[in-house]
């Protein structure tokens, strides 16, 4: 019996080690990423091209921008790809990242139900739209998760006279989850929501929802890319991480970003300098 147990333990350890060795790739990096780039299918399109050219395997952990930055601060990634410039600059200032590069942009839009109870359709003024939604007491679904989109939404509210927190749980619904989950909730509650355009175009559960407010300069959405600082995190795969950053910023990478379309619409516009 004792030998049987020993055999079992040995087998379990061997299995676990086997699993670990399968996972270990010679050249692989972890990218801590915002969700929109993953959910929209951009990575499925870009990464095979990069891996073909370089042999480097890219493992994407897609979480909200806030969590991605936190994970990168814990050294749990080689590259950070997110969209909240102030938070990214703090990350650099704290010495956690080597350098931040503009990568690409798109924009945020406010979507809502067809009947549009607050009457914001066609508006090009984001703050005005939000004020009108709040004024009408119409339901608004917020990410509420410290993500890039949530940070942007809060900065837009900050420029209005409305304090959305005072309506929390009533007309202002904070889902505390990802963009897709929040859109699912918004559709379910007939609530307005702010989303990046890429996630919206590739979102499959739109029901009768439409883009109602768009085109405000304040809705500009810039994505940045950062190599995690190897001086802070010695586990960073500098060579592979740097070549991923370089490739994304190169003409080839930028052209590949530009070429990515869903339903005939461009989702991201490259703007590396």
């Amino acid at each position, binding site marked *: *019996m004792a030998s049987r147990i020993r055999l079992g333990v040995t087998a379990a350890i061997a*299995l676990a080690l086997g*699993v*670990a060795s*399968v996972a270990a790739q010679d050249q692989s990096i972890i990218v801590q990423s915002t969700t929109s780039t993953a*959910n929209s299918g951009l990575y499925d399109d870009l990464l095979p091209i990069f891996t073909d050219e370089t042999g480097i395997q890219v*493992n994407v952990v897609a979480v909200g921008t806030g969590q991605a930055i936190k994970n990168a601060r814990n050294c749990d990634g080689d590259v950070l790809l997110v969209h909240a410039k102030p938070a990214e600059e703090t990350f650099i200032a704290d010495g956690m990242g080597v350098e931040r590069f503009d990568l690409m942009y798109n924009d945020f839009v406010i979507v809502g139900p067809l009947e549009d109870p607050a009457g914001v359709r066609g508006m090009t003024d984001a703050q005005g739209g939000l004020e009108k939604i709040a004024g009408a007491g119409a339901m608004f679904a917020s990410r509420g998760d410290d993500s890039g989109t949530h940070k942007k939404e809060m900065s837009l509210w900050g420029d209005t006279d409305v304090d959305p927190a005072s309506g929390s749980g009533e007309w202002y619904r904070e889902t505390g989850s990802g963009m897709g989950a929040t859109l699912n909730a918004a559709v379910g509650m007939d609530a307005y929501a702010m989303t990046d355009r890429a996630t919206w175009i590739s979102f*499959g*559960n739109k029901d009768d929802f439409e883009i109602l407010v768009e085109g405000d300069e304040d809705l500009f959405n810039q994505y940045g890319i950062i190599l995690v600082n190897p001086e802070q995190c010695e586990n960073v795969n500098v060579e592979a991480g740097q070549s991923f950053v370089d490739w994304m910023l190169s003409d080839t990478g930028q052209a590949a970003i530009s070429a990515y379309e869903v339903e005939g619409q461009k989702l991201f516009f490259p703007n590396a300098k």
Partner: protein
Amino acid sequence: MQDLGEAFRLALSLVLSGDADLVEIVSLSLRVSLTATGAACLIGLPLGALVAITRFRGRNAVLILVNALMGLPPVVVGLIVYLHLSRAGPLGFLGLLYTPTAMIIAQTILITPIIMALSRQVLEDLHAEYAEQFRSLVLSRRQQVAALIWDARFSLLTVGLAGFGRAVAEVGAVMIVGGNIDHLTRVMTTAIALETSRGDLALALGLGLVLMVIALGVNAMVQSLRMTAVRHAYA
């Protein structure tokens, strides 16, 4: 409701076409959860047996604690394991975060209390029958544990299945420690969560149906194994 019909159609076509990605995801799910169940049994069964046959101060407190731990929220287990395996954590040097091994560790922690608590109950009942014999044979504690586990092996299969069911169905822990990385740590439940967030509810539900069929298959296999074994044992 059209999603429901579409989900059945998608689930069928995914299974019938032997979609390579699906096969990869399903086999990782099985590998992670079965390994975790095996590990949890190695830890939980002897501990459950030990508690079943011994009387000590604070035993009731231990029982309450283990029973309560059966309700551990997966996301909390995921967080605890993340904090340990993160590069910033005490075990960060192992480089295990975002690997299947990390997922196995998390699920093992999640279901060991289930294995321990349920097996303790099964073995305590059996021990009541055996206690006199054990005394007359003057067996050591280790021998008693071994004898109880061996004789209750068929009932303990159900205990193992309860643990496996919990492991294969949870999403909170593997999402955090595995990261849902395509072709590396994506399992059935995290794939379902991903498709839900993409708004592809039909595909998400289709994957859910596949997961249920797999759970059904594993249970049926264990049940038939058990029936064959019981027939041989009492033939």
